[in-house]
């Protein structure tokens, strides 16, 4: 996707302020600092070099040391008065403050750096900070699973050291398995944490929910796969399965389509019909039991029969004395 003009101008403004405060920066360091490719950083400096004050004659232009530039180093000679860093726009401050407050709720992220970053940003944001205060974040599900924070630390350690992980994991079918995985990334959807990893047992990429990890330890063996760079397109945490199922849902359960990449076949004020590609029928059963009254119908019928029978067995336990209800 092409970068938005405003985003690029924000970087040009930030770069010149950054360079004005330093004697010299290598092009590679400049690119790394602003999180762009060296080629993009080069284009940015070249654009800055062409800009200046009206007249655009010698002495009106932003200028760099030419001989250093030829050696891959950036050294600013003339900033044309642009050395001041620009304040945050209202929308920019709101977007950042809300994001910080949201991630502060996730287990494993709260810490002194997050608290102090939020304090400093709030001070710099001015009135935008009070706008951002109107956004609240509900306690994520992962916050109720205390073991997640410990697993997060282990996974980060393995990612940082380029090691494999030995996992004991319980999947949707309630089956406990031992797996050795090569960690690729840690992901969160704001509600749960997932480890994206190449599973040697499955021979493929799998997503492991950290609240379903029984134990995790960093292996002595090096991982052959490098951690992935961010790629929003690859961040879906659900594999596409072979079982096609159609769910007729109450409109309030529209989230099923949104969260699980479902295809909406029909939508009215009374119901929404969603097609899902399910990899594991036991995952579907758990979803159906979670939806309860919000699921009006399920097709094919074999799935409906299986999960309805399971629900009846479960209900029986509430009625039998030995089932535990006193």
């Amino acid at each position, binding site marked *: 996707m092409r970068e938005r003009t405003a985003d690029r101008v924000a970087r040009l403004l930030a770069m010149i302020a950054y360079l004005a405060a330093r004697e010299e920066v290598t092009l590679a360091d400049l690119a790394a600092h602003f999180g762009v490719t060296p080629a993009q950083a080069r284009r940015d400096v070249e654009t800055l070099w062409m800009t200046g004050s009206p007249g655009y004659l010698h002495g009106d232009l*932003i200028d760099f040391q030419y001989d250093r530039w030829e050696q891959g180093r950036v050294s600013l000679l003339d900033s044309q008065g642009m050395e001041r860093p620009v304040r945050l726009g209202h929308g920019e401050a709101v977007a950042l403050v809300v994001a910080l407050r949201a991630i502060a709720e996730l287990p494993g992220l709260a810490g002194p750096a997050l608290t102090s970053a939020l304090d400093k940003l709030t001070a710099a944001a001015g009135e935008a900070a009070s706008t951002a205060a109107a956004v609240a974040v509900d306690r994520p599900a992962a916050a109720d699973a205390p073991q997640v924070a410990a697993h997060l630390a282990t996974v980060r350690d393995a990612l940082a050291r380029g090691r494999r992980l030995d996992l004991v994991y319980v999947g949707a079918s309630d089956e406990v398995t031992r797996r050795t995985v090569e960690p690729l990334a840690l*992901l969160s959807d704001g509600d749960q944490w997932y480890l994206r990893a190449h599973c040697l047992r499955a021979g493929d990429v799998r997503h492991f929910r950290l609240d379903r990890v029984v134990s995790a330890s960093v292996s002595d063996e090096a991982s052959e796969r490098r951690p992935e760079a961010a790629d929003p397109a690859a961040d879906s945490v659900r594999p596409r399965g072979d079982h096609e199922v159609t769910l007729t849902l109450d409109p309030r359960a529209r989230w099923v389509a949104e969260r699980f990449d479902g295809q909406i076949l029909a939508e009215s004020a009374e119901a929404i019909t969603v097609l899902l590609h399910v990899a594991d029928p036991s995952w579907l059963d758990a979803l159906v039991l979670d939806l309860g009254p919000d699921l009006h119908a399920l097709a094919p019928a074999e799935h409906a029969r299986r999960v309805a029978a399971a629900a009846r067995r479960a209900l029986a336990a509430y009625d039998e004395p030995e089932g535990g209800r006193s």
Partner: protein
Amino acid sequence: MATVSPAERLFDLVIALRNARAPMSRAQIRSGVNGYHEAENDAAFERMFERDKVALRELGIPLLTITGDAHGDEYGYRIDVSDYDLPPIELTPEEIGVLGAAAQVWDGADLASPARRGLTKLLAVAPASTDPLAGRLRLPTPDEQFDALLAAISQRRLVTFAYRAAHSGATQERVVEPWRLLVSGGAWYLQGYDRVRAGERLFRLSRVAGGVRVLPPDESERQPVGPAYEGRRTRTDAVLLVRPDRATALRLRAASVEPDARPGYDRVVLAPGDLGDLASLVAGYADAVVVLEPPELVDAVRTRLLAVAALDAGDADA
């Protein structure tokens, strides 16, 4: 002659307006600032300049419009240099690392661009970051009404919108004193006071049909803003009977697990949590788990089981 990119033109405009001794007129900008000469006619210049003004404001650059005798009827523009600077902010490598993680939570959403720009501006005065998170975070993409609602909240305005009720599916016009936006369980909500229903309500933004209209300020009969919604949490520990070797994920978060007097069951105690999350977790195990306490969790799980038990009813009749 090489064409001037919009970014280059915008940057040149900032330099010109920052350094100008007096406000610049449109004519001065058109003839003097690099890039505007590419406008082929007056209309093209106007479009170009209007776009650039919007971009400058988006960037937080304080662009002032001056009307006065100096230019007759014509407008003049300048940048308010006293309001231009980022306030002094000293960030540690850890803090800029955290901010970097925060800036990416909106990837794929409209807020991604302003968040990235905000981070970029902070990088101008920041040291190299450490990445304390090594993780990628996403929040649910805010619905299209997000911006309008956030603005209405900060300006204490009322809003009205068509809302699809959960049970009837009927669409009704609501008039709401908006209090706050809430992200919960993968969706965005508006919490506020519903003037039609005369009570506090939570509105799921995906069920708002169409746009949000902001009403003129109306302070009469305004309700005090209530506390933030916190979901329905259980107040006491949940006590469960669990089949041996089953429901491992549930046991992982247990406060205690011990054999029960009843044969074939373990007694598992969970700390209080969100009622909906607990009911989902428990119901998913069907007959492997039986809830003893608290009663609201028993009800929530049984409601789910009863509905699912009827899923093949049509099947049986046939």
